[in-house]
């Protein structure tokens, strides 16, 4: 008890100290990203989204308040991510953690935030159970159940009754597989089989060949966005899966907007479910794309990861504006729980206070060639989708 009181006293002294220097206040945010490793490409997308928002909106911060992002590379490896997060908390004394591409990395970091009591704002990692690990986790991206389950249901509606799934063998892959099978079989479809392959696999042709040899109506294929997605598209094309009468569906990771030019014509006619596409017709999206093109001079194309980073940065900046830069971890979490943004580039979004995950519109998109370019065109919108997994698996 005595020591507890002592700690409290010390803590108040520390807070006093920070109040006196409030005139030139710096908020430190730990930014954990995959700068190298097999997710470096997604990391680059995320980085660009954050940088763009920070560049455009730093001037909007209250006078005297600055935000400093302390950047660390998790290399896509959970143990590295955990270590850098720990260092950010203990060494750099950051007030908040943000970022993370890979679900395993996020899952490794999450327990630390429960101990340190600082918010952890996830801008990509979609592993469905991660927010349950710590009450300080909130997520601005998506879960694979939000995207993969609807595409399962939608597939059966097209009259495709026999399905096959092929996913990368790690948390998000398992989520995607489970969600698709749930949606597909609940709607009356029948699974012919499923394969899981190593997440950092090099050559997908043997796996795709196996799908081809199984002759399903529809194949759900999921890999993390980036090089693997392009490679798998190429394998689908080279093996002539669609020519063999097999429809390909996926979550948006398979056809991220920035990879479309790399994929080209052979990526046409694939149906994916996602929370964002550059072709979405919304004023907020148009403005976002304009700012993006000005900043990156047409050399880069944003995707759902960029938008998630952008939206998360927006929420954090609003938090700082509202609190004038003075907030505790719990206050920040309360702010995020009530977060609503009707004008995100991806449409209306809000945080579900119960799950700390996004409630957002999910778009069913078909890829097609328009003016010589491959694009995702929205063909159906499912409004305000909550994470279905958390409803199916209520906390014990």
């Amino acid at each position, binding site marked *: 008890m005595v020591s507890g009181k002592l700690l409290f006293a010390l803590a108040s002294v520390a807070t006093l100290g920070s109040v006196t220097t409030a005139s030139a206040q710096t908020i430190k945010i730990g930014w954990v990203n995959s700068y190298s490793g097999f997710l470096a490409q997604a990391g680059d997308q995320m980085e660009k989204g954050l940088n763009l928002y920070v560049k455009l909106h730093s001037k909007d911060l209250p006078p005297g308040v600055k935000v400093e992002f302390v950047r660390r590379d998790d290399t896509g490896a959970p*143990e590295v991510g955990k270590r850098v997060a720990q260092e950010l908390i203990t060494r750099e004394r950051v007030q908040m953690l943000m970022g993370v591409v890979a679900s*395993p990395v996020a899952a*490794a970091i999450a327990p630390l935030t429960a101990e340190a009591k600082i918010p952890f704002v996830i801008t990509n990692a979609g592993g469905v159970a991660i927010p349950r690990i710590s009450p300080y986790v909130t997520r601005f991206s998506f879960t694979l159940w939000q995207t993969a389950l609807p595409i399962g249901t939608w597939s059966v509606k097209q009259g495709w009754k026999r399905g096959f799934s092929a996913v990368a063998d790690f948390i998000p892959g398992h989520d995607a597989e489970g969600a698709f099978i749930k949606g597909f079989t609940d709607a009356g479809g029948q699974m012919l089989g499923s394969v899981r392959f190593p997440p950092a696999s090099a050559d997908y042709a043997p796996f795709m060949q196996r799908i081809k040899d199984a002759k399903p109506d529809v194949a759900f294929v999921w890999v993390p966005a980036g090089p693997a997605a392009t490679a798998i598209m190429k394998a689908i094309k080279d093996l002539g899966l669609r020519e063999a009468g097999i429809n390909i569906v996926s979550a948006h990771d398979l056809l991220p907007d920035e990879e479309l030019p790399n994929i080209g014509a052979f990526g046409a006619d694939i149906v994916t479910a996602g929370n964002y596409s550059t072709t979405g017709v919304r004023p907020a999206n148009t403005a976002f794309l304009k700012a993006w093109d000005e900043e990156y001079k047409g050399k880069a194309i944003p995707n759902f990861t960029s938008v998630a980073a952008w939206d998360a940065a927006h929420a954090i900046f609003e938090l700082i504006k509202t609190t004038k830069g003075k907030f505790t971890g719990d206050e920040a979490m309360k702010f995020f729980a009530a977060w609503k943004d009707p004008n995100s580039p991806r449409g209306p979004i809000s945080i579900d206070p119960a799950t700390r995950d996004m409630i957002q519109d999910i778009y069913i998109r078909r890829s097609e060639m328009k003016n010589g370019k491959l694009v995702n065109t929205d063909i159906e919108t499912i409004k305000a989708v909550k994470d279905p997994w958390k409803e199916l698996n209520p906390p014990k």
Partner: protein
Amino acid sequence: MSHLTPSADRRAADIAAFSRRHRFHWFEALPWLIAVAAYFMFPNYLALGSQILAIILFALSVDLVLGYAGIVTLGHAAFFGVGAYTAGILAANGWGEPISGLLAAAVAAACIGLASGWIILRTTGLTLLMQTLVVAAMLYELANKAYRFTGGADGLQGMSVWPIFGTFRFDMFGNTAYFYCLVVLFFGWLVVRNTVNSSFGRSLTGIRENVGRMHAIGAPVAQRRLVVYALSAALAGIAGALTAQTAQFVGLNVLNLERSGTILVMLIIGGIGRLYGAFIGVPLYMIAQDRFAEADPTYWYFWIGLAMVFIVVFLRGGIFGVVERLLARSRKQ
């Protein structure tokens, strides 16, 4: 007789000098003094510090097989990883007592060492190098496949390590972890030091220096190599378990080729077969990596790589080798 017969005094002095070689020198206290001082000087770097201490133990285990027994291995991560997963799986499934976790890890790694060593140590040279590599790669694939136990590519989540002796809790700042690693490393070092100075250890040096002659003086070479391989595996397993317990996480990369390769690199940088190469090479490499990664998260590989090429071109025999040469030169003058 044509030769001078040294006096009885000379004989006594020679024998005394020879039989006292295992005694402690003052400089052997240096690493430990530095380690304790580092605790007070860099309180914000204890997480890195405890990792360095654990990896030093790993490097010591490699030095034992490579530097003393002359077994070139590119797969020692196998034992590090088995140790890490053993301690990790125990802690994730309700047995978080750290010290018994270390022991379990040592036993598991030693068993794998015995079993694989029995098969692969009959080969030599590049073939042996490949065999060590392949053993580690197989364990990697198995760990990936055994998703239910290991968490596969997602890593082993949900480890809960109990306080040491029920008293010292592993805190986020790494105070406990640092001293825990320091004490375990100290005991590990004592074991390695005692081993290399024992008759067994000297016979290993003999095997490295001239296998043919060891056969010719009647040494059971295969048996010695197997024993030291298993002992080294056990130490590597403890190092892996330390890493797992202090980070409270185990990922597949405890078993990968990069880990086997970089531990070799760290040891070569320090100097092999000298017992203290690990104490120089590991901190140097890991601190450099930490600094580079912070200054330049994308391109730290470049500077590490450049340093490695520089060392091999200009500093043959590692840092310790250079120090020894300088000492030898100053002694001559």
